[in-house]
């Protein structure tokens, strides 16, 4: 299988890589770079466990060939935290007890970030609609929806309470 030379900007760091042209972004992140925060749940675009941001758009990384991502800015769930400081979305998932087994969580958090970037004040209906592609088998979505609502309320710039570390990461 042929390789392609690409550059990815992942969570603010540049990675120059040779990737086999048939490798998905998920496989490159997990197997080649050891960034296992992005999860495999189905490999066929049906569960959202592998959601990452490409520039500001959330995609299923199991469906994207890494070779087509040259020059892109990729953000994973780990990219939101800053030396152990959770960002407002992660903190909201914590506060609302929206994490059980945690396997869907990185994808949910990334999807939430993309939703709030487009729509900072989503209705409950819009939240549920936005999360349709992300399956959670533990929570019944109830607390996840509440977490997204809280994340919207506590987004940096929307309240005076947003902490500095979060703002820094968001910028």
């Amino acid at each position, binding site marked *: 299988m042929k390789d392609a030379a690409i550059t990815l900007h992942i969570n603010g760091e540049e990675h120059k890589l040779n990737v086999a042209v048939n490798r998905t972004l998920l496989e490159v992140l997990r197997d080649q770079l050891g960034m296992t925060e992005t999860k*495999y749940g189905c490999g066929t675009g049906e*569960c959202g466990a592998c959601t990452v941001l490409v520039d500001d758009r959330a995609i299923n990384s199991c469906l994207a060939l890494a070779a087509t991502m040259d020059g892109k800015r990729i953000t*994973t769930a780990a990219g939101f935290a800053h030396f152990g400081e959770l960002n407002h979305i992660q903190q909201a998932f914590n506060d609302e007890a929206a994490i*059980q087994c945690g396997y869907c969580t990185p994808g949910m958090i990334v999807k939430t970030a993309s939703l709030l970037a487009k729509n900072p004040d989503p209705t409950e209906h819009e939240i549920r609609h936005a999360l349709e592609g992300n399956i959670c*088998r533990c929570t019944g979505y*109830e*607390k996840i929806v509440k977490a997204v609502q809280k994340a919207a309320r506590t987004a940096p710039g929307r309240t005076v309470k947003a902490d500095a570390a979060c703002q820094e990461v968001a910028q």
Partner: protein
Amino acid sequence: MNAETIVGTSAQRVDVKDKATGQALYAADIQLPGMLYGKVVRCWEHAHARVVRLDLSQAAKSPGVVKVLGPADVTRNKYNSSVMDLMVSAQLHDMLGDIDDQDIFTTHVKYQGDAICGIIAKSEEAAERAAAKVIVEYEPLPVYLTAEASKQPDAVQFTPQKPGNRAFQLPEAMFPGNALGGGDVDAAMQDADIVVEDVFYVPKQKQCQMEPHAYIAKLDNAGRLTCWTSSQMPKLVQAKLAKLFELPMSRVKINATVIGGGFGARLGMISEPQACAMAMAVPGHPVKLQTLREEDWAISPSRHPGKYWMKIGLRKDGTPLACDARFENYKGAYYLDASGTAFTAGAWLGGMYKFPALRYKGESYFTNQGLTGAFRGYGNPQTNFALEQLIDRACAQVGADPVEWRKKWHKGVGDDGWCPGVTYPSCALDECLDRGAAAIDWAAKRRKYANQTGTKRRGVGCAVMNHTSGAMPMLLEHTVCTVKINEDATAEVVFACSDMGQGSHTALKQIAAETLGFPFGDVQLANPGSDAGFDIGAHASRTIYVGGAAVKAACEDAKRQLFARASEALQVPADQLDIRDKKIFAKSDPARSIDVESITRAGVYHFIDPMTGKPEGAPGQIQGYVSFFAPHNSPPFGASFAEVEVDTETGEVRVLELVNAHDIGRAINPAAVEGQLEGGIQQGLGFVLSEETYYDSQGRMLNNSFTDYKMFGPSDMPKIKTILVENADPVGPFGAKSVGESGLVSPVGAVANAIYHALGIQFMEAPITPEKVLKGINEKGLGGARERARAC
């Protein structure tokens, strides 16, 4: 956080940061030096066949391949991937007839996905390429998808040990007439004014835990086999693997990884035997074995589908007289858990209502469907679907309100629970029913939705359930816990207990902190897998009720030792001491106190004063220990209320609201308890409305993917309300009963009964899909389109 208030608060989960950032390590995330990759070659073409030729020579030559393993290259010992055999006495084991009928690699394929051989390669890709070069020829055998088919006298036998392909029936020696219950059912039915009966079909539901099964195994140079697995039962899996590979347990080690959801799918073993067999072929190298989602679907056990006959008899005043039932489940290809669900479905039935006469027969038949085993609820949703619908039908006939009837006739304190002779120590089901009914506005909506004629019709329904907290006295209930007090007055609780995501580690830590009187942050909980003392594992909703009681007992042991030393130092009797803010003090005179750390440090760094020859403080590190056997099973109860809207033109059932009111004894961590009930609702709604694994006539799965298997998504979920009814149980730790499984059970009956209220039609087959609803509407002549035309 002050120690005194930590039980009963929604303390922050111990694993939340790791999970929110994705740093939690599930088995597939673990990378080890020198790692090789395994691939199990499975039979996807047939659900029943004999392997007549297996040629591995081309695969062995494929680039990157290290070894290929056929049936002859691994132990020929058979196994049973369930752990039921380890949890019953030898006598009961013989009675239940548990057998070992699985092979690591088989030559008789019994379900689609059965394992044929294994590849070990330097990369996953290389293993996959080699897998495609394995040559297998099959002789197809007749495929039996139902009990009716596999019990035919001329059917191919799945194992010589189970003639007639009957894997299990309730044993005569324990259940006379092969039936659970008592009283004269036939005579009582004769006396009944009203008899309702039906045959129900319950579906093959899949756990769909989000983390597909993955393992790493390694045989190290000292001859020790280590397996990294997300099993719910590290200690029993250790015992199982030791037996299978004929190794002493001291040479089998289980590392418990973070678990991406269990729901029963990780009870016992799945592919640990294959992963370990591969590791044993390449000593010194870890072998990683990951499963694809569609593979996970095939190889891990699902909920038992089958036919459920049920008949109940009542007096016309509503007095229940008799219940007669038989559940014949389609077991799937192998024996594992054949006895469990066949028994428990009847146990929950017997534990629910005051039927003076009960006869329940449970049987399991081999079929060529995929495996069945443990799934959250374990026979309970099946029983709920049948029983709760018949109760509502009977209520309609006797003119009783379904809530009032249930309040009058459910079993309660002092009655026999699911296991005859073990009575209920607590029951707050009446409060669950009252509060649930108020929350959904039961009385008003029952009236409002009677006699609707429009296209969209609403209904409200209710259902109740009982479950268990651990499986005493049927199964072993043993947990060992140690708590080590560090020299700086912090504590480490060691317990081989898996947190499948429900938050049990956090709740157990709360119990430990509260019992010791230590700050929450000063207590750690470690699950070192098989290096810890014995524990049967996380199943039967036992972790808080039994495990929590064990943690409490071990902490009490440590605290007793600590107080004995404080008593000595302060010259105050131990029973007159208390602990707060890291000090032990006399209750009558708090100024008379000693720092906990001064005791613990002197115990560990214990010196003799060289000048005086006197010891400084009492010697020895304090460790609490318990080998705990649960004295009871304090069942939880629950009531669910559903409001639905049925579209009579499309057959679609929309659940508008679901109230889950549960008698959980006491919530150690309320947010975690709510999470269990909310997640349970999603799975219960799936069981009754949308989830089933389908097979074609040749036993091949038609919908082993998240697109084709419909789970409730965020937009499908109704408005949810959970009500925690806290009525402290006299046995459970801090009054707690279980909550892990129960949340999904009664939503099943509540939704079915709400549909009945909306349409006046009951559906005997779950899931109640739009097709079935339309068929029922057409049969009953409730033409939605016609009605609407008339209304316009």
